[in-house]
């Protein structure tokens, strides 16, 4: 959180909350993340896109320490991920994450899903955790499902609960890894709306998604990944209208077809 780092691109003048510097990650011999540097400022919304296998999920998982990077610096709000469990716990507490699917614990009610984190990890009193949970369920418009089990909810509702569950931990950054790509088309919209509303609250968001409408509407910046590298980085209007690289052009052509 130094003053000089705050001059990084994007929403200028604010502190970078997530900062990657020449991060490398290998799976055995396979070089999955190749020297990625990325700064995300407080309140900024970054959309990451790119072809399947380009390392988007791996990158996102490195940011909250679900995967260990082998080289480079990765800092989340002043905590450097150094492989020690103290830094891991610290970072996971600051970072909320929503996956493609299987987010919710099927053997717990919706409410319990939302209170496990605050009560067990943050040590909040049960009643307080429940109040917070209900407030976030209200925010994602799903309060009436609090006592149901996840499998009784539609996929879209489940993803909204997953977002609420992450918010209950009062994260400083929210990571999304293709939260709508496993959903039926009619449910995509409700989840995107929830994410758009969340962006409106000023939450810092890093979203891996191919929903270009969403990117146009809320993203401050689009990061295009290809083969483990950031191939292109631009504001949405620029990226969509005039992609610089051939790979980005081909990628856009392909996803805008359907």
């Amino acid at each position, binding site marked *: 959180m130094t003053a000089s780092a705050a001059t990084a691109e994007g929403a200028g003048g604010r502190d970078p909350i997530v900062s990657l510097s020449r991060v490398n990650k290998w799976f055995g011999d396979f070089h999955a993340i190749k020297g990625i540097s990325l700064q995300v400022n407080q309140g900024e919304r970054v959309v990451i896109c790119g072809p399947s296998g380009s390392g988007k999920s791996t990158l996102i998982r490195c940011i909250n320490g679900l995967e260990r990077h082998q080289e480079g610096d990765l800092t989340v709000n002043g905590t450097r991920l150094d492989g020690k469990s103290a830094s891991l716990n610290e970072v996971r507490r600051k970072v909320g994450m929503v996956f493609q699917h299987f987010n919710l614990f099927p053997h717990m009610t919706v409410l319990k899903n939302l209170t496990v984190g605050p009560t067990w990890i943050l040590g909040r009193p049960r009643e307080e955790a429940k109040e917070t949970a209900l407030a976030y369920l209200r925010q994602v418009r799903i309060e009436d499902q609090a006592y149901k089990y996840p499998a009784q909810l539609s996929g879209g509702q*489940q993803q909204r609960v997953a977002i609420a569950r992450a918010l209950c931990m009062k994260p400083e950054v929210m990571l999304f890894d293709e939260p709508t790509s496993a959903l039926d088309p009619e449910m995509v919209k409700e989840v995107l709306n929830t994410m758009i509303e969340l962006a409106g609250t000023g939450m810092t968001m890093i979203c891996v998604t191919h929903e270009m409408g969403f990117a146009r509407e809320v993203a401050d910046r689009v990061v295009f990944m290809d083969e483990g590298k950031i191939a292109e980085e631009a504001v949405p209007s620029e990226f969509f209208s005039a992609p610089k690289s051939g790979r980005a052009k081909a990628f856009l052509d392909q996803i805008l077809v359907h």
Partner: protein
Amino acid sequence: MQLIIENFPLLLTGLWHTLQLAIVTLLGSTVISVAFGLMGVARSGVLRATSMAYVEFFRDIPLIVNVLFVYFGAPLIGISLDPFGAATISFSLWGGANGAEIVRSGFNSVPLHQERSAVALGLKPWEVMWYVLAPQALLPIIPPFTGLFSLLIQATSLASMVGAMEFFRTSQIIVERTTMMTGYSPAFLVYGFVLLVYFVICASLSALTKRLETSLSERQSRRGGRKAAIPQAANESI
């Protein structure tokens, strides 16, 4: 019938020993199963390899060979075991190997994303295990584990091979003694009775676990079943 009533005290002693054998064996097997099963899903490659080696070794030896091996092998390394000890140890080692495999595949049946979500939420490894993975692994573990328990109870009769005075051995004695004294063999009658007793024990065990299983899966279906939370995307990345 007369014969069985006459020898009732002896049979009862045998039955009592069989129950003791069974209880200790089931407990021992369960402890070993859980320990080696969890090792089998551990992150550490050394633990996983150890678990796999154990499972493969003991599953591949016939149980009876195992019993004889422990009973006659233990003195060679300076441990003297009575038949009861040798039998329970070898049954537990064998049951543990089979049970570990059941526990391991139970845990493996829980989608990887469940662990990821729990870790991302900030839960500590033991909390992930205990609160998130174990409850979901339980349902697929129970039915094969009941089968294993039933096998182990039946297997306790093998303890007679090393001289344990368990139920099967006592009935054998009755048959032999009666044959010597009266000249006719009551084998059919006595072993029929033995069969009935084993059947009753195993059947009540499976009835019991059936009820546990039903109540668990009823709870599950009240929650809307075990189906994937969201339809599986065809292109889900690892």
